[in-house]
């Protein structure tokens, strides 16, 4: 145990040495507050991913029988993003939201699954998760949950 710690410490130091001061500060969580512009940019990047996920969610191209996720999951509802990881009967094991997204591509939509860390998969996850913002994390909770109620518009700010 001690040895491993020492080793990883050595690894970290070498990274610090290689990449310089910026990494040292973020590694110790001492980065000065981000500027308004930076925050806005980061937020916009997330919303771009959400919008991309929205488009995929409504696209029949992920599948082979005309269906899109949104046929059955309007506003990303009933994906119960806050309940993962959990045991899911169709997966037959404790799985993740991304595994369930792929399962739904493969089974109800008869499509080809996505790479787990692909931009598409992350966008799909971003869309469904953003639609449930504020919902308490409840691993293994057995429920069907709606997304955050939407009055109008796409359900997220657009940039």
């Amino acid at each position, binding site marked *: 145990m001690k040895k491993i710690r020492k080793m990883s410490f050595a690894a970290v130091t070498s990274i610090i040495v290689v990449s310089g001061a910026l990494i040292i500060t973020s590694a110790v969580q001492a980065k000065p507050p981000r500027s308004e512009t930076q925050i806005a940019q980061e937020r916009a990047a997330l919303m771009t991913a959400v919008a991309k996920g929205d488009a995929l969610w409504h696209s029949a191209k992920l599948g082979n029988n005309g269906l899109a996720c949104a046929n059955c999951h309007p506003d990303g509802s009933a994906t119960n993003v806050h309940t993962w990881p959990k045991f899911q009967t*169709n997966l037959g094991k404790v799985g993740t939201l991304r595994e369930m997204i792929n399962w739904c591509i493969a089974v*109800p939509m008869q499509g080809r699954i996505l790479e787990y860390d692909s931009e598409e998969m992350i966008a799909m996850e971003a869309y469904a998760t953003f639609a449930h913002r504020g919902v308490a994390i409840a691993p293994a909770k057995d429920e069907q949950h*709606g*997304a955050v109620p939407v009055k*109008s518009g796409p359900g997220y700010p657009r940039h």
Partner: protein
Amino acid sequence: MKKISRRQFLGMTTKAGAATVFAGIFAPSAASMLGLGGVAEATTKKIKPFTFAVLTDAHLYDIADHKFDHILEKAVSDVNSIRPRPDFVLYAGDLGQSGKKDELLKGKRILDKLKMPYKIIPGEHDYYLDMGKAWRGLFGDEHWSFNHNGVHFIGMNSILVPDFWTLKGLTPKERMGMMEELECHNCGAWGVGEKQLDWLARDVKNVSPHTPVIIMTHSPLWDYYPRWNFQTYDAPQIRETLRKFDKVISIHGHVHQVVYNEIGNMRSCGLLSTSWPWPYPPVELEYPHIKQRRADPGDFEDGLGSHDIALDADFGGTVHWREFSDLLPDNIKKGLKV
């Protein structure tokens, strides 16, 4: 409505039976569509008991041998197996998915296997490619009424939205594509519109307030979740026009789920689809115990089904959600009295 007790009813049976007006006898055409019934007014509180069946939301794709074709076929055989046989079948819209004529033709071919006449209204998925042209060519009027065994039946097109496409210069296909999305954020709220409201007022003008009324629309006649058009914007006017009646039963498609509500003299029932079940939207229900359980996405028939509605002599109705699998809670397994 002043309820007639069972005892009173038993004493009256023969008289009531004889007095029942057999208004609007169906004359199924070659295409096995329901003929429009006569407008003769039902003149008694008593009706001649009967059963009718309801199907909705098949969402057929223009893809050969699609899974939804088989589910609709299964629902049709299920309805054909109901005993006593339903007098007729109502279909509450969304027969096709993208409004293509081939989808509707396929749907009609399957529905024509029903052993009884049927009557149908359009859903948004049937409509917005050609503004209902193909649908009307196959099925006729978008709104209608008929009388059967003393009950006045009404069907209306509740999916009409104000023009959102002309200014944007959308093609018919783009317009349909937007309407296909339940969360369409540029399409606006649906309703039946002025013309149909006027027609409805004229239609029921001479119908006695004691006549039982059953109205079918694609969308609910109450504000359930407007975001998904689980609403009809001019439903308040519809309810107002129907307020003179002792009791109105409203049945609607579009929600792809078991849901129930009462509003004024209206009892409203949401129906199962034969395509996919929808999650319950994030709102409180007045009747939360009248719901279906979660579906298994690995079982393509879960949460889907057909319906029959049995009416007794006092217009007491029993709605049976005939779910293919076992997702109904015990309290409505044997039907819901409405």
